[in-house]
């Protein structure tokens, strides 16, 4: 039997080529992701460990107790502590590190980023960091930038930059070098400015040392040095070896890499699933085509089990071979992807990349590919054994490949699944927005998808009939294409379902993203019809400086500006978010489109509540909300419920009530609303003038906020499409493979058509139309499912979500499906047209 199987395989290798390709792609993605993640993790680790190699012992000041005065500033070591460490016999050298905030200004003289840059000292006897480019700062007027800050500000070595001192005065420095701070969390998100020690003490707020770096004396084991250092420092201080600290940083980084890996693996799973569909279809078609061959085997005495095992053996060989190839490609892909992409993920590209290929990714790739192939071949193999020997031999070529009717069982199963999915969906929509709702939507979508899978032949028949109607008007080519698609709806269904997976996911995402965009826009415009917002730069310790009153006064004096108001917000004892808008006319300046009531009614003793908060607190219109703070308590009547996602999410109170609760909280934001019809450019000038003296204030225009938001959504869309692109590519291979096998099967038919006078070009067009039809049906189904569940997911995730159909994107997907169909038909159609008529007519 083995020999027959292998001979069969050799004979059918051409037919399996695209299947092999599908397995290879799916496996390659899986293995590639794992290799990429491993390498990323290792590279993070190497990078971190690299910076810690130069430090034997690192000491951190004690964490402040919960009870201590928050005004005291971050904990630090004093000079005395450093001197004591230096005095130890186990220690050769020790350096104290100054660390705090030193806002770097951009070329416009405004602070860079939402958070002020960190300021730190570098160099000294025990220098943890080296310059990645240039050299470390030495002089009074020299500075080194973190690679992140340099990139954000567009600075390079040799540039002059301004940094604000603790008093807010700018000082100029020359950039001598760039430093890669790697994964040091205090720096990685906001960037840093590094000075020589003396300069740092002057430029960085706060006293003492945030870290002490120690080099152990010659011949002293690190552990002894750790114990010695710990002995002279505050006993609550955290003293550890450089190695240990590096490892903890690395494991945190590893966790990041793992999250990324998981996300990638999700996409890999989608690809593998799509590959499985493609493989399944190929085997199903091959079995159908080889019915006679197998019947002959049965006639000459092969047992049912032997035929079954033969098929599985074939799948095993194909699966193993393709998986091995896929694994190899995946390793290359992972490493190549890392080499290309590492720049964006791991900064500091000068760390040499160390390729990591472990056993797990290789085994996982082999296992996934082989198992998926075996499972996909199982049903076709079972079907093969059920062939009654004589039936198959007798069946005429004419009847081959013709199957009508979808089993009643399928329809019943499909209907049951649709009902279940619908029920879950209805349940979701009647419950609150939140993660449970999202999970339910996903579950409902999966159930629905299985239902679609069950009745897909019916769906194909229905959709093709509809789509086929205009196609038939186009003449013989169109008619034949429609008839060919309809002759084997099961095949067409499996081929298109693979594409449906990708189309559903992409459409779902774009529905959510466009709905989010529209919702945000609408709610911002309705509830926050402001043109500019001004806010203090965020501070890492949460203590933002209030906005100076002079800014508001200056803005108010401009004739271009119709209103200026501020916002104050705080959380009460029960973590209820309370806000108030001094200077704003509620209902005009902010808040509009209430769900219930009128926000204009808010005055002393009353409040408007965001929808989400209202449900959380269990209050409705006319009820009372109790708010409580250390300073007092108030009881307010709810006079309006507002949509939660438009900016007024918490409890909006009158200024009086807010002040009785939080007398000390100052203006967090300042909002500017221009007169109608004001030139945007003039307005910008007015606002810029008003904040010119306060470089740390952050200015954002509504347009900017919107475009920022759009950009984030677009980037996400590109990334997700890219990831799903592979699944879609595999699906296209699947359609191409189905076409190729059908073309082989229909050699005689093609020859007959050619004999009857169908030109080569029209034969090609016929097959192209067939493939386009299949992929279009798949895409339409995907768009329908994606729209439904994207809408449901949006509804369940956000309150008051407005639905927006991403018409342009959807048109794009459908156009892409047409192109995909044409591409899928390219090779099979060429082969069909090239086949000699007389040869095909003579063959049986």
């Amino acid at each position, binding site marked *: 039997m083995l020999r027959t199987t292998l001979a069969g395989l050799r004979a059918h290798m051409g037919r399996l080529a695209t299947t092999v390709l599908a397995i290879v792609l799916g496996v390659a993605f899986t293995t590639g992701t794992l290799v990429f993640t491993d390498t990323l993790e290792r590279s993070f680790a190497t990078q971190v460990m690299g910076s810690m190699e130069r430090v034997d012992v690192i000491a951190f000041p004690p964490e402040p107790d919960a009870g201590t005065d928050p005004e005291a500033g971050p904990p630090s070591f004093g000079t005395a502590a450093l001197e004591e460490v230096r005095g130890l016999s186990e220690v050769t050298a020790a350096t104290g590190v100054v660390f705090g905030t030193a806002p770097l200004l951009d070329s416009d003289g405004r602070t860079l980023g939402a958070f002020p840059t960190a300021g730190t000292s570098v160099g000294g006897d025990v220098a943890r960091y080296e310059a990645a480019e240039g050299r470390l700062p030495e002089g009074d007027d020299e500075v080194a930038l973190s690679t992140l800050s340099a990139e954000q500000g567009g600075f390079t070595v040799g540039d002059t930059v301004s940094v604000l001192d603790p008093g807010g005065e700018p000082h100029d420095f020359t950039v001598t070098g760039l430093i890669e701070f790697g994964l040091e969390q205090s720096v990685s998100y906001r960037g840093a400015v590094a000075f020589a020690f003396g300069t740092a003490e002057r430029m960085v707020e706060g006293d003492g040392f945030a870290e002490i770096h120690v080099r152990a004396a010659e011949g002293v084991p690190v552990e002894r040095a750790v114990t010695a250092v710990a002995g002279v420092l505050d006993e609550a201080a955290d003293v550890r070896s450089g190695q240990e600290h590096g490892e903890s940083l690395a494991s945190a980084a590893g966790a990041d890499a793992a999250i990324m890996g998981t996300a990638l693996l999700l996409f890999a799973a989608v690809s593998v699933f799509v590959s499985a569909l493609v493989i399944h279809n190929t085997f199903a078609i091959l079995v159908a085509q080889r019915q006679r061959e197998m019947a002959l085997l049965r006639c000459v005495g092969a047992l049912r089990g032997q035929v079954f095992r033969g098929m599985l053996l074939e799948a095993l060989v194909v699966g193993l071979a393709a998986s091995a190839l896929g694994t190899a490609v995946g390793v290359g892909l992972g490493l190549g992807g890392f080499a290309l992409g590492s720049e964006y993920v791991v900064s500091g590209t000068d760390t040499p990349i160390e390729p990591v290929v472990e056993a797990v990714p290789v085994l996982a790739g082999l296992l996934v590919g082989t198992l998926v192939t075996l499972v996909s071949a199982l049903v076709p193999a079972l079907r093969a054994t059920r062939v009654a020997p004589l039936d198959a031999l007798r069946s005429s070529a004419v009847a081959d490949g*013709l199957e009508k009717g979808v089993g009643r069982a399928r329809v019943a199963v499909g209907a049951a699944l649709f009902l279940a999915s619908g029920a879950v969906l209805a349940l979701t929509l009647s419950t609150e927005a939140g993660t449970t709702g999202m999970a339910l939507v996903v579950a409902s979508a999966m159930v629905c998808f299985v239902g679609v899978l069950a009745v897909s032949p019916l769906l194909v028949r229905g959709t093709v009939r509809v789509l086929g109607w205009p196609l038939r008007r186009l003449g013989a080519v169109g008619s034949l294409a429609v*008839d060919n698609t309809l002759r084997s709806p099961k095949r067409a269904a499996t081929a298109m379902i693979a594409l449906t997976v990708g189309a559903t996911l992409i459409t779902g995402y774009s529905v959510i993203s466009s709905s989010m965009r529209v919702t945000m826009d609408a709610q911002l415009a309705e509830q926050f019809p402001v043109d500019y917002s001004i806010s203090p730069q965020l501070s890492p310790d949460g203590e933002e400086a209030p906005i100076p009153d002079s800014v508001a006064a200056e803005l108010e004096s401009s004739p271009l500006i119709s209103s200026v108001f501020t916002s104050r917000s705080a959380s009460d004892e029960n973590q209820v978010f309370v806000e108030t808008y001094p200077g704003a006319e509620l209902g005009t300046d902010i808040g509009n489109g209430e769900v219930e009531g009128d926000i204009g009614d808010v005055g002393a003793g009353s409040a408007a509540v965001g929808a989400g908060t209202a449900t959380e607190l269990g209050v409705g219109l006319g009820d009372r909300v109790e708010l409580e703070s250390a300073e007092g308590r108030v009881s307010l009547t709810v006079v309006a419920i507002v949509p939660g996602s438009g900016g007024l999410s918490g409890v909006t109170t009158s200024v009086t009530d807010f002040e009785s609760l939080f007398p000390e909280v100052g203006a967090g934001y300042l909002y500017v609303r221009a007169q109608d019809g004001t030139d945007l450019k003039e307005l910008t000038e007015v606002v810029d003038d008003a904040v010119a003296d306060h470089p740390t204030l952050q200015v954002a225009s509504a347009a900017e906020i919107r475009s920022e938001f759009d950009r984030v959504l677009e980037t996400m869309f590109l990334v997700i499409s890219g990831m799903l692109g592979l699944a879609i590519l595999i699906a296209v291979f699947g359609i191409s493979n189905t076409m190729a096998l059908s073309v082989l099967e229909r050699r005689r038919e093609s020859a*007959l058509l*050619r004999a009857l006078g*169908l030109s080569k070009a029209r034969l090609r067009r016929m097959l192209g139309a067939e493939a386009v039809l299949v992929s279009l049906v798949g895409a339409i189904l995907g768009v329908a499912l994606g729209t439904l569940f994207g809408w449901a997911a949006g509804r369940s995730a956000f309150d008051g979500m407005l639905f927006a159909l991403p018409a342009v994107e959807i048109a794009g997907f459908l156009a892409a499906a047409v192109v995909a169909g044409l591409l899928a038909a390219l090779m099979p159609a060429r082969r069909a047209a090239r086949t000699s008529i007389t040869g095909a007519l*003579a063959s049986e």
Partner: protein
Amino acid sequence: MHQTSASVRTDPPQEPPAVVVRALTKVYSSGGSSVRALDGVDVEFARGAFTAIMGPSGSGKSTLMHCMAGLDTATSGSVRLGRTDLTTLTDKQLTLLRRDRIGFVFQSFNLLPMLTAEQNILLPAQIARRRVDPERLAHVVGVVGLDDRLDHLPSRLSGGQQQRVAVARALLGSPEVVYADEPTGNLDSRTGAEILAFLRDSARTMEQTVVMVTHDPVAASYADRVVFLRDGRLVDDLAAPTAQTVLDRLVGLEA
């Protein structure tokens, strides 16, 4: 009427033949070896006549038919259909010629399985975007006796019924010539006889030129004339054949 020359004219001089073949040679060469499937064939087929081509297996019957039908290209020599020389045509022109001027009936696999009998009959017209005269369709369908089977798929038709559909399809467009390669090869003798009768009657009543390849002397006896091939050459030509005269010639050929 007992003629042995291959190039004897049998048609009246005032009516030019439908198909004229001159010095037709077809050499199949694969690798080192080459087969002369046709070796200088000269033959003419009269308009409105039903002619059978016979000969031992491998004698070149199918090859000759394929070359005359524009399905295959000859190595040398010429084939004329009416005024058109097939050997000078491009693939595209040959396709159009087959579509508009030639009809086919093959031994098997004549029909597209996903089309009904009627759709199969109308297929060439649909491909050519030709309008079909409903009366002509009704007539042809009536002649082959398919009226009550028109909406059946081929899988629900018997072999004989399938061949009738193929014959109807070939006759519908009134092509200049209908080629049939062993049209009754897969049928029992009674069903075969029906098909042959249709072919003969259509030649008589509709002035349809029909050229048929067959192995069967009885089938050949339905024709007006039989030409014999051996080793790629035309070796005999028999007018008004009967099964017995054909058999006699065949025996003579094989000897």
